[in-house]
């Protein structure tokens, strides 16, 4: 119970501090904070907006899990951005080339995306263990190589043959209907009224849930997850304990990349091709979401939803003119910063309390009892 309180105190406190600071900022901008928050909440209370939020939170969550797998063993995979965009392109192209029954078609596309993401992230892992290249540097480089190099090049080569270039026809050849992940409106509508405005709840949400559960089981129930955490906490101790460090690094990078490969599936289910303007920045957004969610499978759900909610609020704030839409970015930044500070503070308090408890125990009793 005490541990849970400690864990919850930081994010709740961070959110409260964020609201205070944002309110001050809003007042300075000449807006009424209560009006702005009211508009955001009443907009978010609509079912259609909730679908938007879930659709936005899904790629954020996948991206956060991808980053968190690395963070858990002190690997900073900054390359999620390049990995998911590259995986999206290859998966879209492969998917357009085949015609299969729906289940196999979707599975093939997802497998290709995960494999490409894993392989591309694996490059950074291999470079680290064989040549000692810091993965931060190599993944940033690989981002540039993927986005400005490989994608730009292959995108041209695979541009669908056509007479008329319009923004709707640009991109790779469209994937057959059978390769597109269906929406899961029906699943949500069991609990709610029918979803209007033609909004579709992405089926990738289910994949994200599975990934979250798998991530949780990996960390808590599997040997690999234990090795991963051990390597992160103390690589030398882990090594002494029989965890092969090189294999762990490569495996963790590949796993992180494989999850990253799934990020683009949300967009692919929607557009059915690699469009010339894919949604970028999700890889970096995921790092923030992972930090805020403390790499915890449940915590990241909350932080992904929070970020998605803030993103989606930007439209309504502009429409009602209750506040400038930049307030959304400001809130995202502040909540992250305050949370990191709060985590630091609670950790320090926790450590001090533990130290005091140990000291008291040492003072008041025999050493043997403490050990026991």
């Amino acid at each position, binding site marked *: 119970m005490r541990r849970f309180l400690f864990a919850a105190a930081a994010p709740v406190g961070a959110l409260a501090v964020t609201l205070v600071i944002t309110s001050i900022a809003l007042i300075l901008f000449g807006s009424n904070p209560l009006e702005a928050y009211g508009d955001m909440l009443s907009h978010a209370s609509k079912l259609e907006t909730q679908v938007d939020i879930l659709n936005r939170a899904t790629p954020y969550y996948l991206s956060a899990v991808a980053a968190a797998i690395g963070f858990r063993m002190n690997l900073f995979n900054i390359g999620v951005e390049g990995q998911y965009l590259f995986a999206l392109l290859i998966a879209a192209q492969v998917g357009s080339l085949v015609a299969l029954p729906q289940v196999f078609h979707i599975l093939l596309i997802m497998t290709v995306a995960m494999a490409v993401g894993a392989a591309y992230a694996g490059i950074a892992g291999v470079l680290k263990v064989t040549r000692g290249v810091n993965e931060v540097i190599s993944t940033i480089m690989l981002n540039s190589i993927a986005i400005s190099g490989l994608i730009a090049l292959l995108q041209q080569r695979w541009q669908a043959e056509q007479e008329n270039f319009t923004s709707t026809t640009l991109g790779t050849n469209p994937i057959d209907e059978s390769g597109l992940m269906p929406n899961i409106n029906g699943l949500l509508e069991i609990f709610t009224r029918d979803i*209007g405005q033609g909004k579709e709840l992405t089926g990738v949400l289910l994949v994200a849930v599975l990934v979250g559960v798998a991530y949780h089981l990996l960390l808590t129930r599997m040997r690999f997850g234990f090795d991963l955490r051990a390597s992160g906490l103390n690589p030398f101790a882990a090594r002494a304990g029989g965890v092969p460090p090189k294999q762990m690094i490569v495996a963790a990078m590949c796993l992180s990349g494989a999850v990253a490969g799934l990020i683009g599936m949300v967009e692919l289910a929607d557009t059915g091709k690699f469009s010339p303007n894919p949604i970028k920045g999700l890889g970096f957004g995921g790092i923030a979401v992972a930090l805020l969610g403390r790499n915890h499978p449940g915590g990241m759900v909350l932080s992904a939803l929070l970020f998605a909610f803030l993103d989606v609020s930007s439209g309504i704030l502009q429409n009602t003119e209750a506040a400038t839409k930049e307030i959304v970015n*400001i809130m995202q930044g502040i909540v992250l910063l305050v949370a990191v500070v709060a985590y630091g503070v609670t950790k320090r308090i926790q450590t001090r309390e533990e130290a005091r408890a140990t000291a008291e125990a040492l003072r008041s009793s025999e050493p043997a009892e403490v050990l026991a």
Partner: protein
Amino acid sequence: MRKKSTLILALLAVLSLLAAACGSDVADVASDAADAAGDAAEAVEDTVDDAMEDDAMEDEDADHSADDDAMEDEDAMEDEPAMADSDTTVGLVYDIGGRGDLSFNDSAAAGLEKAQADLGVAFTEASPNNDGSDRAELLQIAADGNPIVIGVGFLFEGDAVAVAAENPDTNFAVIDSSMLDFSQDPPGPYGDNVAGLVFAEEQGSYLVGVAAALKTESNQLGFIGGVCCFGLIEKFEAGFRAGALSVNPDIEIVSQYITDAPDFDGFNQPDRAQVIATTMYEDGADIIYHAAGGAGNGMFQAAKDYSEDNGSKVWGIGVDSDQFNTIGAVDESLQEYVLTSMLKRVDTAVFEILKAQNDGAFAAGPNVYDLSVDGVGYSTSGGFVDDIVDDLEAAKASIIAGDVVVPTDPTEVG
């Protein structure tokens, strides 16, 4: 003590973040993104002239009469300065970055304000997230409260089609896209409530071609296109050539494109534009017209460098917005090399479609804005073409009168 310093540090950190966020950073990022988006917007306008002409033919009579009506109304409006009050409200969604981009978005905003002043149209405005992920959401929010929704830039094409299908009672207009469904045969509008607002770029290019031919001393001109072979930028080249040759049939015009479609990077490569422009100036051209979006800045830089190195002044001609002003915001020293700019009047398009909506004359499919409605034009900022304005106005009048038909295909021009 420790506690206190930690607290102060934390507060400082938060405040600095706040300052950074409120400060120029956000605006910079946003305007960069907007530039890129604007350039891309030019890149992918569909231009199947045949298809459009076929379509236009059928509606031609109707269009003309509508135009005439519109003209008359406008005159009437000028006579009586009364501020009309209209039931029409509009939700306008800018491209990424919103107001302040000195280009498409600001021009759209100007049209919006004119419609508010002249027609009494009330508006709400919005711009997407930096990654553009919420375009459809913004269109839907705008459609919830307004009879007409405008998307600034072709990037709204796909989302506008989808949202329009769900909101049949709301009209949608997208700037810089014809909004033609090419899966139909012949291509037609996506729906009765979907219009595309496009421009007769060849007519504006003709006028700056005339200006270049009148101003050149070496009788050599250059043209730099951003991206070749998807049917849009050729219109600029054809108009420019035709305009220049109409003044002097012996004039020499070299043209070069930075990239070929579907590689649209040409619009974002000022370095390559600079290399091409430098070569053209060295080969004797003294005026170059660019239709290369953001890459065009490289051309103006080349004009400045060449002029300073060789002591003989060379010029560049801008495109889309009044580049004397837009480039002045980036680097004032380049202003004196902007002879004129071919204007794409997004403000006119916004105003005209709102006027049509107000008059109950919203027309689905492509709405082409040409010289007759000031949909395209040339700029006089800097005063470098003040001495030839009469010639330019004469050329403009003869195009509007139909005496000159500007070609859209450069291979048709001598």
